[in-house]
Protein backbone atom coordinates (compact mmCIF):
# COMPACT_ATOMS: atom_id res chain seq x y z
CA UNK A 1 0.00 0.00 0.00
CA UNK A 2 1.16 3.52 -0.73
CA UNK A 3 1.50 5.86 2.20
CA UNK A 4 2.21 9.46 1.29
CA UNK A 5 4.69 11.32 3.43
CA UNK A 6 6.37 14.65 4.09
CA UNK A 7 8.97 14.33 6.81
CA UNK A 8 10.37 17.84 6.86
CA UNK A 9 7.93 20.56 7.89
CA UNK A 10 8.66 23.60 10.06
CA UNK A 11 6.19 25.03 12.53
CA UNK A 12 5.96 28.65 13.66
CA UNK A 13 8.48 27.73 16.34
CA UNK A 14 11.25 27.79 13.74
CA UNK A 15 12.26 31.43 13.29
CA UNK A 16 11.85 31.09 9.54
CA UNK A 17 8.48 29.31 9.85
CA UNK A 18 5.44 31.31 8.80
CA UNK A 19 3.03 32.31 11.59
CA UNK A 20 0.33 30.24 9.86
CA UNK A 21 2.32 27.12 10.69
CA UNK A 22 0.44 26.30 13.87
CA UNK A 23 -0.06 22.66 14.89
CA UNK A 24 -3.73 22.66 13.86
CA UNK A 25 -3.09 24.28 10.50
CA UNK A 26 -0.24 21.90 9.68
CA UNK A 27 -2.26 18.81 10.54
CA UNK A 28 -5.36 20.05 8.71
CA UNK A 29 -3.38 21.02 5.61
CA UNK A 30 -1.65 17.64 5.61
CA UNK A 31 -5.06 15.98 5.91
CA UNK A 32 -6.53 18.01 3.05
CA UNK A 33 -3.54 17.23 0.87
CA UNK A 34 -3.97 13.51 1.58
CA UNK A 35 -0.72 12.87 3.41
CA UNK A 36 -0.56 9.85 5.70
CA UNK A 37 2.78 10.32 7.43
CA UNK A 38 4.40 13.61 8.41
CA UNK A 39 7.12 14.92 10.66
CA UNK A 40 7.58 18.35 12.19
CA UNK A 41 11.27 19.13 12.23
CA UNK A 42 11.90 22.51 13.79
CA UNK A 43 15.40 23.93 14.03
CA UNK A 44 17.13 22.69 17.19
CA UNK A 45 13.96 22.26 19.24
CA UNK A 46 11.16 19.74 19.75
CA UNK A 47 8.85 21.97 21.77
CA UNK A 48 5.91 21.83 19.36
CA UNK A 49 5.96 18.05 18.95
CA UNK A 50 3.53 17.25 21.76
CA UNK A 51 0.71 19.35 20.30
CA UNK A 52 1.35 18.00 16.79
CA UNK A 53 1.41 14.39 18.01
CA UNK A 54 -1.90 14.86 19.83
CA UNK A 55 -3.61 16.40 16.79
CA UNK A 56 -2.12 13.88 14.38
CA UNK A 57 -3.60 11.05 16.39
CA UNK A 58 -7.00 12.75 16.31
CA UNK A 59 -6.94 13.16 12.53
CA UNK A 60 -5.45 9.76 11.70
CA UNK A 61 -2.12 11.14 10.49
CA UNK A 62 1.00 9.38 11.61
CA UNK A 63 3.39 11.94 13.10
CA UNK A 64 7.02 10.89 13.39
CA UNK A 65 8.71 12.87 16.17
CA UNK A 66 11.53 14.83 14.53
CA UNK A 67 13.97 17.72 14.71
CA UNK A 68 16.38 19.45 12.33
CA UNK A 69 19.72 19.90 14.05
CA UNK A 70 22.36 22.39 12.96
CA UNK A 71 25.77 20.83 13.53
CA UNK A 72 28.82 22.89 14.38
CA UNK A 73 29.89 22.65 10.73
CA UNK A 74 26.50 24.25 9.95
CA UNK A 75 25.17 21.14 8.29
CA UNK A 76 21.46 20.44 8.73
CA UNK A 77 20.72 16.92 9.94
CA UNK A 78 17.22 15.54 10.42
CA UNK A 79 16.70 13.20 13.36
CA UNK A 80 13.66 10.96 13.70
CA UNK A 81 12.47 8.99 16.72
CA UNK A 82 9.83 6.42 17.50
CA UNK A 83 9.02 7.55 21.03
CA UNK A 84 7.92 11.12 21.64
CA UNK A 85 9.69 11.08 25.01
CA UNK A 86 13.01 10.22 23.38
CA UNK A 87 12.55 13.04 20.89
CA UNK A 88 11.70 15.53 23.63
CA UNK A 89 14.70 14.54 25.74
CA UNK A 90 16.99 14.74 22.70
CA UNK A 91 15.46 18.13 21.84
CA UNK A 92 16.34 19.47 25.27
CA UNK A 93 19.95 18.39 24.92
CA UNK A 94 20.15 20.07 21.52
CA UNK A 95 18.57 23.32 22.69
CA UNK A 96 20.90 23.42 25.70
CA UNK A 97 23.93 23.28 23.42
CA UNK A 98 22.92 26.36 21.44
CA UNK A 99 24.96 29.46 22.24
CA UNK A 100 23.31 32.03 24.45
CA UNK A 101 22.40 34.42 21.66
CA UNK A 102 18.92 35.87 21.98
CA UNK A 103 16.50 35.74 19.10
CA UNK A 104 15.70 39.09 17.56
CA UNK A 105 12.11 38.58 16.40
CA UNK A 106 12.20 41.58 14.07
CA UNK A 107 14.98 40.03 12.04
CA UNK A 108 14.56 36.28 12.36
CA UNK A 109 10.87 35.90 13.22
CA UNK A 110 9.03 34.61 16.25
CA UNK A 111 9.69 31.28 17.93
CA UNK A 112 6.26 30.35 19.28
CA UNK A 113 5.21 27.25 21.19
CA UNK A 114 1.57 26.10 20.95
CA UNK A 115 -0.72 23.65 22.69
CA UNK A 116 -3.20 21.49 20.78
CA UNK A 117 -5.93 24.10 21.26
CA UNK A 118 -4.00 26.49 19.06
CA UNK A 119 -3.09 28.66 22.04
CA UNK A 120 0.37 30.15 22.24
CA UNK A 121 1.84 28.83 25.46
CA UNK A 122 5.38 30.11 25.24
CA UNK A 123 8.26 31.36 23.21
CA UNK A 124 11.86 30.23 22.95
CA UNK A 125 14.47 32.75 23.82
CA UNK A 126 17.68 31.51 22.20
CA UNK A 127 18.11 32.00 18.47
CA UNK A 128 17.27 28.62 16.94
CA UNK A 129 19.05 29.07 13.60
CA UNK A 130 22.40 29.00 15.33
CA UNK A 131 24.79 26.06 15.28
CA UNK A 132 24.89 23.60 18.17
CA UNK A 133 28.22 22.53 19.62
CA UNK A 134 27.90 19.03 18.12
CA UNK A 135 29.57 17.71 14.96
CA UNK A 136 27.82 15.56 12.35
CA UNK A 137 29.37 12.49 14.00
CA UNK A 138 28.27 13.63 17.47
CA UNK A 139 24.68 13.99 16.31
CA UNK A 140 24.75 10.55 14.72
CA UNK A 141 25.84 8.90 17.97
CA UNK A 142 23.77 11.13 20.22
CA UNK A 143 20.54 10.45 18.32
CA UNK A 144 21.35 6.73 18.45
CA UNK A 145 21.48 6.97 22.21
CA UNK A 146 17.87 8.16 22.09
CA UNK A 147 16.97 5.35 19.63
CA UNK A 148 16.76 7.76 16.73
CA UNK A 149 18.13 7.90 13.19
CA UNK A 150 19.89 10.70 11.36
CA UNK A 151 19.26 11.82 7.79
CA UNK A 152 21.36 14.56 6.15
CA UNK A 153 18.86 17.24 5.07
CA UNK A 154 18.62 18.75 1.55
CA UNK A 155 22.04 17.30 0.69
CA UNK A 156 22.53 19.40 -2.44
CA UNK A 157 21.78 22.78 -0.87
CA UNK A 158 24.84 25.05 -0.95
CA UNK A 159 24.14 26.48 2.48
CA UNK A 160 23.56 23.88 5.18
CA UNK A 161 23.46 20.82 2.89
CA UNK A 162 26.09 18.22 3.80
CA UNK A 163 27.55 18.11 0.27
CA UNK A 164 27.56 21.89 -0.02
CA UNK A 165 29.32 22.32 3.32
CA UNK A 166 31.52 19.24 3.77
CA UNK A 167 31.62 18.07 0.17
CA UNK A 168 31.03 14.44 1.14
CA UNK A 169 29.03 12.21 3.45
CA UNK A 170 31.20 10.65 6.19
CA UNK A 171 31.44 7.03 5.10
CA UNK A 172 32.11 5.62 8.53
CA UNK A 173 28.58 6.52 9.66
CA UNK A 174 25.93 3.91 8.94
CA UNK A 175 23.41 6.23 7.36
CA UNK A 176 20.63 4.63 5.35
CA UNK A 177 18.84 7.71 4.07
CA UNK A 178 19.52 11.09 2.56
CA UNK A 179 17.01 13.84 1.98
CA UNK A 180 16.50 15.67 -1.28
CA UNK A 181 13.93 18.32 -2.06
CA UNK A 182 12.96 17.20 -5.54
CA UNK A 183 12.40 13.83 -7.09
CA UNK A 184 15.20 14.03 -9.62
CA UNK A 185 17.36 11.03 -10.26
CA UNK A 186 20.54 11.00 -8.19
CA UNK A 187 23.63 10.89 -10.37
CA UNK A 188 26.34 11.23 -7.73
CA UNK A 189 28.07 7.93 -7.22
CA UNK A 190 28.59 8.54 -3.54
CA UNK A 191 24.86 9.03 -2.98
CA UNK A 192 23.54 6.03 -4.87
CA UNK A 193 23.76 3.66 -1.95
CA UNK A 194 21.38 5.71 0.15
CA UNK A 195 17.61 5.52 0.10
CA UNK A 196 16.27 8.96 -0.68
CA UNK A 197 13.50 10.71 1.16
CA UNK A 198 11.87 13.51 -0.79
CA UNK A 199 10.49 16.16 1.54
CA UNK A 200 9.19 19.69 1.18
CA UNK A 201 11.13 21.58 3.90
CA UNK A 202 7.92 23.61 4.11
CA UNK A 203 8.02 26.92 5.96
CA UNK A 204 4.51 27.91 4.88
CA UNK A 205 1.29 25.92 4.46
CA UNK A 206 1.20 25.91 0.65
CA UNK A 207 4.64 24.32 0.50
CA UNK A 208 3.64 21.14 2.34
CA UNK A 209 3.99 18.26 -0.16
CA UNK A 210 1.18 17.15 -2.38
CA UNK A 211 0.63 13.36 -2.19
CA UNK A 212 3.53 12.58 -4.52
CA UNK A 213 6.16 10.84 -2.45
CA UNK A 214 5.22 7.57 -0.87
CA UNK A 215 6.50 4.57 1.04
CA UNK A 216 5.26 1.14 0.09
CA UNK A 217 4.23 -0.41 3.39
CA UNK A 218 1.92 -3.21 4.52
CA UNK A 219 0.50 -1.02 7.23
CA UNK A 220 1.22 2.48 8.47
CA UNK A 221 2.89 1.07 11.59
CA UNK A 222 5.56 -0.40 9.32
CA UNK A 223 6.92 3.11 8.79
CA UNK A 224 9.28 2.62 11.72
CA UNK A 225 10.66 -0.59 10.26
CA UNK A 226 11.05 1.15 6.91
CA UNK A 227 12.97 4.00 8.54
CA UNK A 228 14.86 1.53 10.75
CA UNK A 229 13.82 3.28 13.94
CA UNK A 230 13.33 0.81 16.77
Amino acid at each position, binding site marked *: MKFYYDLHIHSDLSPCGNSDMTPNNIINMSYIKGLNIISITDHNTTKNLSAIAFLGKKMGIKVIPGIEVTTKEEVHILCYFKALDDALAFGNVIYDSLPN*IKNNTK*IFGEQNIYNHNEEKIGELDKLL*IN*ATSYSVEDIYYLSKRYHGITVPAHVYKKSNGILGVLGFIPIDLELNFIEVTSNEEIKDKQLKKYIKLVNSDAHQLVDISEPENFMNLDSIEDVYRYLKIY
Partner: protein
Amino acid sequence: MKNLDLASNLKLEPLLVTNKEIQIEGVYIGDLLSIAMSKAKENFLWITIQTHVNIVAIAELLDLSCIIIVEGMEIEDETLNKAKELDIPIFKTKDSAYQVACRLHTMGIK
Protein backbone atom coordinates in the same frame (compact mmCIF):
# COMPACT_ATOMS: atom_id res chain seq x y z
CA MET B 1 33.63 56.25 2.81
CA LYS B 2 30.92 56.17 0.15
CA ASN B 3 29.76 52.93 -1.31
CA LEU B 4 31.21 53.51 -4.79
CA ASP B 5 34.56 54.71 -3.45
CA LEU B 6 34.94 51.56 -1.42
CA ALA B 7 33.98 49.49 -4.45
CA SER B 8 36.58 51.15 -6.67
CA ASN B 9 39.33 51.08 -4.03
CA LEU B 10 38.81 47.40 -3.44
CA LYS B 11 37.92 46.49 -7.06
CA LEU B 12 34.51 45.24 -6.07
CA GLU B 13 31.21 45.10 -7.86
CA PRO B 14 28.58 46.92 -5.77
CA LEU B 15 25.35 44.94 -5.72
CA LEU B 16 23.45 47.68 -4.04
CA VAL B 17 23.96 51.37 -4.63
CA THR B 18 23.31 53.26 -1.45
CA ASN B 19 24.29 56.63 -0.11
CA LYS B 20 25.14 55.19 3.24
CA GLU B 21 28.47 56.24 4.67
CA ILE B 22 30.45 53.05 5.21
CA GLN B 23 32.57 53.06 8.35
CA ILE B 24 35.12 50.33 8.73
CA GLU B 25 36.42 49.74 12.22
CA GLY B 26 37.57 46.20 11.66
CA VAL B 27 37.35 43.20 9.36
CA TYR B 28 36.02 39.71 9.90
CA ILE B 29 36.68 36.90 7.43
CA GLY B 30 34.81 33.62 7.79
CA ASP B 31 31.97 31.52 6.49
CA LEU B 32 30.35 29.84 9.46
CA LEU B 33 27.45 32.09 10.32
CA SER B 34 27.41 31.11 13.97
CA ILE B 35 31.09 31.99 14.40
CA ALA B 36 30.74 35.25 12.47
CA MET B 37 27.79 36.07 14.69
CA SER B 38 29.84 35.69 17.84
CA LYS B 39 33.12 37.24 16.60
CA ALA B 40 32.33 40.13 14.26
CA LYS B 41 31.62 43.51 15.81
CA GLU B 42 29.73 46.69 15.03
CA ASN B 43 31.06 48.54 11.96
CA PHE B 44 33.11 45.54 10.86
CA LEU B 45 33.39 44.72 7.21
CA TRP B 46 32.59 41.03 6.64
CA ILE B 47 34.22 38.95 3.93
CA THR B 48 32.57 35.59 3.22
CA ILE B 49 31.60 33.08 0.54
CA GLN B 50 28.21 32.49 2.18
CA THR B 51 25.31 33.89 0.16
CA HIS B 52 22.31 32.73 2.16
CA VAL B 53 19.82 35.43 3.19
CA ASN B 54 20.85 34.94 6.80
CA ILE B 55 24.15 36.78 6.14
CA VAL B 56 22.10 39.96 5.79
CA ALA B 57 20.19 39.16 8.96
CA ILE B 58 23.48 38.79 10.81
CA ALA B 59 24.86 42.04 9.37
CA GLU B 60 21.73 43.80 10.59
CA LEU B 61 21.87 42.13 13.98
CA LEU B 62 25.48 43.16 14.59
CA ASP B 63 25.38 46.49 12.72
CA LEU B 64 28.14 45.42 10.38
CA SER B 65 29.21 48.07 7.89
CA CYS B 66 29.04 45.93 4.75
CA ILE B 67 29.36 42.43 3.28
CA ILE B 68 31.81 41.37 0.58
CA ILE B 69 31.10 38.09 -1.19
CA VAL B 70 34.28 36.63 -2.63
CA GLU B 71 35.25 33.86 -5.06
CA GLY B 72 32.53 34.97 -7.50
CA MET B 73 29.83 33.10 -5.61
CA GLU B 74 26.36 33.49 -7.04
CA ILE B 75 24.02 35.41 -4.78
CA GLU B 76 20.36 34.55 -4.31
CA ASP B 77 17.76 37.21 -5.16
CA GLU B 78 16.28 36.78 -1.70
CA THR B 79 19.60 37.86 -0.17
CA LEU B 80 19.84 40.95 -2.38
CA ASN B 81 16.25 41.92 -1.70
CA LYS B 82 16.80 41.64 2.03
CA ALA B 83 20.00 43.72 1.80
CA LYS B 84 18.07 46.38 -0.10
CA GLU B 85 15.26 46.34 2.43
CA LEU B 86 17.64 46.72 5.38
CA ASP B 87 20.01 49.06 3.51
CA ILE B 88 23.10 46.93 4.01
CA PRO B 89 25.81 47.54 1.39
CA ILE B 90 26.81 44.31 -0.30
CA PHE B 91 29.56 43.72 -2.86
CA LYS B 92 30.94 40.86 -4.86
CA THR B 93 34.25 39.98 -6.45
CA LYS B 94 35.88 37.08 -8.24
CA ASP B 95 38.95 37.53 -6.04
CA SER B 96 39.71 35.56 -2.91
CA ALA B 97 39.23 36.72 0.66
CA TYR B 98 43.01 37.01 0.97
CA GLN B 99 43.32 39.29 -2.06
CA VAL B 100 40.59 41.59 -0.74
CA ALA B 101 42.20 41.56 2.71
CA CYS B 102 45.54 42.62 1.18
CA ARG B 103 43.90 45.57 -0.58
CA LEU B 104 42.21 46.57 2.68
CA HIS B 105 45.62 46.52 4.33
CA THR B 106 47.10 48.86 1.71
CA MET B 107 44.14 51.17 2.24
CA GLY B 108 45.26 51.48 5.84
CA ILE B 109 42.74 49.20 7.45
CA LYS B 110 44.77 47.11 9.82
